[in-house]
């Protein structure tokens, strides 16, 4: 698809916040909506949506997860007549993409989804009815770097940022056919969409080698010691790279980093001071939104003094 077509197509999208954004990741929900409003982009929340299955349901049965995700896409396509679903949560985004891939390529998945949809009493989702995009695609393809530059009120100048994308945004590669597709597309080995946007808002992105490292989010509670070690590795590497802020684009990564930053301090004696802020919060503040408007008070890690010092409040 041409860039200008995407710009047109993503002006109004079906918005799928998912469960995390109604709970621990509410700051991401608030800041995404505020950003959309500020940029004049329309979000129509998916009617009566359900959980995508997160990282847990697939361990009970992968096809059940495919069904859960397909129901969300079916509602967007058949009830709301939308052709784009935007999911800011990496888990939701990943699961919808995975369902799309499986429904396109696997007859067994199609059979299970069809059977469950019919019994549940709604139309079966057919592969290709909607396009699932991430909040990063949404901002990048509608407003883009040039558009952001024009709109910046409080430049992020002088803020050193490590961009952290986590696992689900790029892996496994085959469910993201639009990535690694030549110039301008997202890279699965070295993603850069968040870097591009924050750079346009004036930030200084540091060279961060753990962009797609794992925070242990799937076992954040069931194997906390492993998660704490993985997270402290990410936090310490970001600080070593000179970052003051880790920008996040996934509620599981975000709350995992915040939670295990505290846990690392309490159990391993590893104290780090790097701030953990959603990219939508950073962009929102750069566009002149107040910290509370982008839910900075809903983060566990306190970055009020920091953003004040940097002239964003």
């Amino acid at each position, binding site marked *: 698809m041409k860039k200008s077509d995407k710009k047109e197509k993503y002006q109004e999208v079906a918005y799928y916040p998912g469960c995390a954004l109604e709970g621990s990741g509410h700051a991401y929900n608030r800041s995404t909506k505020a950003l959309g409003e500020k940029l004049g982009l329309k979000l129509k929340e998916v009617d009566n949506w359900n959980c995508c299955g997160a990282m847990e349901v697939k361990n009970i049965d992968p096809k059940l997860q495919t069904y859960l995700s397909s129901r969300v896409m079916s509602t967007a396509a058949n009830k709301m007549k939308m052709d784009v679903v935007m999911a800011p949560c990496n888990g939701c985004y990943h699961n919808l993409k995975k369902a799309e891939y499986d429904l396109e390529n696997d007859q067994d998945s199609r059979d299970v989804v069809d059977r469950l949809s019919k019994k549940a009493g709604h139309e079966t989702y057919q592969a290709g009815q909607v396009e699932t995009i991430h909040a990063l695609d949404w901002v990048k393809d509608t407003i883009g770097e040039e558009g952001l530059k024009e709109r910046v009120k409080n430049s992020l100048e002088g803020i050193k940022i490590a961009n952290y994308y986590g696992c689900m945004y790029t892996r496994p590669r085959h469910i993201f056919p639009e990535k690694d597709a030549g110039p301008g597309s997202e890279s699965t080995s070295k993603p850069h969409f968040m870097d591009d946007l924050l750079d346009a808002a004036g930030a200084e992105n540091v060279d961060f080698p753990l962009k797609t490292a794992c925070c242990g989010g*799937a*076992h954040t509670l069931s194997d906390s010691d492993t998660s704490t070690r993985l997270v402290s590795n990410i936090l310490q590497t970001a600080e070593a790279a000179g970052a003051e802020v880790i920008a996040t684009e996934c509620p599981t990564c975000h709350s995992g980093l915040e939670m295990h930053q505290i846990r690392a*301090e309490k159990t391993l004696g590893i104290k780090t001071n790097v701030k953990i802020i959603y990219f939508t919060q950073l962009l929102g503040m750069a566009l002149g939104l107040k910290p509370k408007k982008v839910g900075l008070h809903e983060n566990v890690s306190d970055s009020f003094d920091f953003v004040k010092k940097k002239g964003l409040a």
Partner: protein
Amino acid sequence: MPIHEKSLIRPENLKVQENIELEGIDVSGHWSTFIESRVVTDYNEAMEEEIAALPGGEFIHRCWQCGSCTNSCTVNAINADFNPRYWIYLIRTGMESELLRDKDIIWQCVSCNKCTYACPRDVVPEGVMKATAHWLELKGHTPKSHSTIFDEIFSEQVIETGKIEDGRTIRRYFKQTGQALRQPWLEEMVKRLLRNLPIGMLTRMGLANFITPKTAGWSGARDAIKEYVSEQEAHHRKVLGLDDLVKAAENEL
């Protein structure tokens, strides 16, 4: 990148001669170390097929042992005993007793999918790890891991209501695994969270304790899913011959 794997030779199989003299020359010490050979006779020929029948294990037969999975593995980087390549080898050759030596760590796969990304044969090693952990539990080799308990609590709530409320899931998980909710780090986290929260948000969070979020009109989906899940469970029990095992045990009693 070279593949680094911890030595797979067991320490107890290393034989060092403390005092040995050969043709008048002293050859004692570690440089004359031998590895005791071992004989494996108890192959489990059904193991690969059984694991392949569980969700995630379908493509284990494609593996050609390149080691890309272990090389890219997140957990292997912090625990060298966590070795997907080796486990796939053991499963495919039927060396059950060897696999069981690592039974208590296989569930620790964090599903980061680096292995699936790196695998040149589309084995989906992440799925194989989940299937193997599941197999170990179904066969009674390990109790349900904390990960499985969490998955079950989570999935049960999704199936019942269509949605997840994270506070409730966390509380149920801590209760069911017998852990105290008052962990120092968790308390510190809540304290920091409360510092900046307005009353409205607190009320909303408080209400979530009493009002479970629900997807309206979910009952049709719930019933369809429950029927499907119990069918799948019955299928897995059949493939693994679990009902026969139970029957045989009962007859013995």
